[in-house]
């Protein structure tokens, strides 16, 4: 039977990757993709090749009531769509809470409202984040982790609040929680620059040389390929209904100290960089790091203040030791995440090779 899906965030790393895999896996599948800029979508449609003929662009925006979808189109979606993959998000860590909520919480509410009207809907697949657990430490289970621990940034909080909406929606939901995606796959190619890459660049430039945390703390990272493969597989899996699935390295996550050592080892291969004698970043407790942050903010040096401020929305996670339980993924998936040691070094080399941007083949 022909399936029709709706994907939000299809222009993004995860939404696009999942859509591609779903279309490739099922030649009868057709897709509606919600896009804010229909002209841009049409301009870039060639990237999809033959798959593009099975994709229909729907102009809209998750942030506005009714998602801004024209009524005739909305009626068609309500009649046809059997699966929704909601991957649209604003992942900027430094945004104000209200801004984060508009895209991530209100946006999810609007998609759920549409989902509630879809007559043939069998699954609502929500792409969340492993960091909804916020400041929690220790083993993070695959369930509602509560709000008690608080969050490091507004993105984490808004995503947590969105998860709560999904859980109480009455749909047949599945929540996917990817950890930080650092590259496409084992090739280490960076297709989307995020907070981790920006932080690494600051340390590479010698503009910061300390971070909170301990060398032995785990820092979970993952590849985009693994996340997209997992979502494309489990979104249709009946056994995944009502499950929260961490898409993480879990017990195989590397230690912060090892990741840092590898980074400096890679950077030191550049003789000119090594000649500067930049200090390797040292790890310290949150209180000492907070004193440093405060000193920089008080002194008002605009560039340094901006850089340290950008780190403050991310690096405190390094000082919150945690391990993401991956029991659900281990049970439901026939494949495992790739070892981080396979791609972390390559990812660092690619960042240098591309001038801290994305790979040419993707940016073109």
């Amino acid at each position, binding site marked *: 039977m022909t399936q029709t899906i709706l994907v939000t965030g299809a222009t993004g790393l995860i939404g696009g990757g999942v859509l591609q895999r779903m279309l490739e896996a099922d030649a009868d599948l057709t897709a509606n993709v919600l896009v804010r800029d229909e002209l841009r979508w049409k301009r870039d449609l060639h990237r999809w090749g033959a798959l593009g003929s099975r994709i229909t662009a729907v102009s809209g925006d998750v942030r506005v009531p009714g998602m801004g979808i024209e009524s005739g189109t909305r009626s068609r979606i309500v009649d046809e769509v059997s699966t929704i993959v909601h991957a649209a998000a604003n992942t900027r860590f430094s945004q104000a809470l209200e801004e984060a909520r508009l895209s991530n919480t209100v946006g999810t509410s609007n998609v759920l409202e549409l989902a509630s009207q879809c007559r043939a809907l069998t699954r609502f697949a929500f792409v969340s984040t492993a960091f909804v657990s916020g400041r929690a430490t220790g083993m993070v289970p695959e369930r509602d982790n509560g709000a008690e621990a608080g969050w490091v940034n507004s993105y984490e909080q808004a995503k947590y609040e969105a998860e709560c909406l999904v859980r109480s929606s009455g749909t047949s939901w599945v929540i996917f929680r990817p950890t930080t995606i650092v590259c496409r796959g084992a090739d280490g190619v960076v297709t989307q620059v995020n907070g981790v890459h920006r932080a690494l660049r600051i340390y590479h430039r010698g503009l910061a*040389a300390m971070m909170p945390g301990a060398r032995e703390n785990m820092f979970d990272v993952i590849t985009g390929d693994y996340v997209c493969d997992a979502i494309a597989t489990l979104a249709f899996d009946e056994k995944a209904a009502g499950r929260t699935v961490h898409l993480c390295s879990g017990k195989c996550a590397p230690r912060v100290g090892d990741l840092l050592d590898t980074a400096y080892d890679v950077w030191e291969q550049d003789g000119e960089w090594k000649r500067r004698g930049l200090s390797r970043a040292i790890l310290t407790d949150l209180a000492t790091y907070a004193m440093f942050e*405060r000193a920089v903010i008080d002194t008002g040096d605009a560039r340094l203040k901006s850089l340290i401020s950008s780190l403050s929305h991310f690096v405190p996670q390094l000082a919150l030791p945690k391990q993401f339980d991956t029991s659900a993924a281990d049970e439901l998936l026939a494949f495992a995440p790739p070892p981080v040691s396979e791609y972390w070094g390559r990812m660092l080399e690619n960042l240098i090779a591309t001038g801290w941007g994305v790979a040419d083949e993707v940016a073109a």
Partner: protein
Amino acid sequence: MARSTTTGTTPNLPAIAGISYVFPEGSRTVRQMADDGLLQSSAETMESFGFARVHVAVAESPYELALSAARDLLAEKDIDPASIGLVIYGGTPGSMAFASATDAAEGAAGLCTSRRFMYPGARLQYDLGLSNAWMFAVDQLACTTLLAAARIARSLCITEGIERALCVSSEFFPAKAGREAIFNCTSDAACAVLIERTGARNQLRSATTVTKGYYWDVDGLRDEIVASYFPTARHVLHQTIADAGWSLDDVDWIIPHNVSMRSWEILAGLAQLPRARLWTDNIARHGHTLAGDNFINYRDALESGEIEPGQRVLLFSYGFGAHWTGVAVEA
């Protein structure tokens, strides 16, 4: 990065036999300096960093203060000038050393003439009657100058058998540079330190210096310098402690250079040295006297009775340009 370390190997180590210092007559509060436009940061920020007052030379020249500090030291310790085998001068160079603060520009212009060779170190040797001393100067070490001079004196006492060395610094903050250097309020001062070949008290146990030439461009790499300061300082502190044969727990006192309290609190946290062991009384009283801080503070801490004989003391300073130096002293 270039790193060098000196480690004591004999029980009769060179030691600090005396310290003397002189401030100019004038002084300014942080608020007065802010009102006069001499600070880049606000007065409130500087006060929150622990600064209250600094010494500002007006009529005095760097040489006058250097001579006064050295003369006081010899008199106080009743030292025969002829027993001094070495003078190491660090601070304001050539003709600039003889110009009063108000005539600093004229003194600086003299460096482009034959007055460049009017060396304050040589004149010190003559004016103090140090007839058996040879003299040289150390330069480009900024606030680590006097620690470096003491370290060199220590080495020469061991290797060349020099019995007594006089280290003198006299540094005025550049006349047109305001009174703030990377969030620190600067003072003018001179300090003299007497090093003897052996001594039971105040033994110089070890010294570590790291130079990172990449940071020579102090204005262009200001943010990078702030970032690099802490990890490099931590490394130097730990290396100095290790070279002295101590552990972190052995350190009884840390005698700082008088930079902001906030930065010392951060560094103490990073280096896992208790904040309570930092001797910070002089930050508010004197501000940052460039090269003199550590020895001025060491003398004051000894006189206050807070440092007791046999206690293990760590002196640390950072010099713009860029050097990190630690010295371990057994009181």
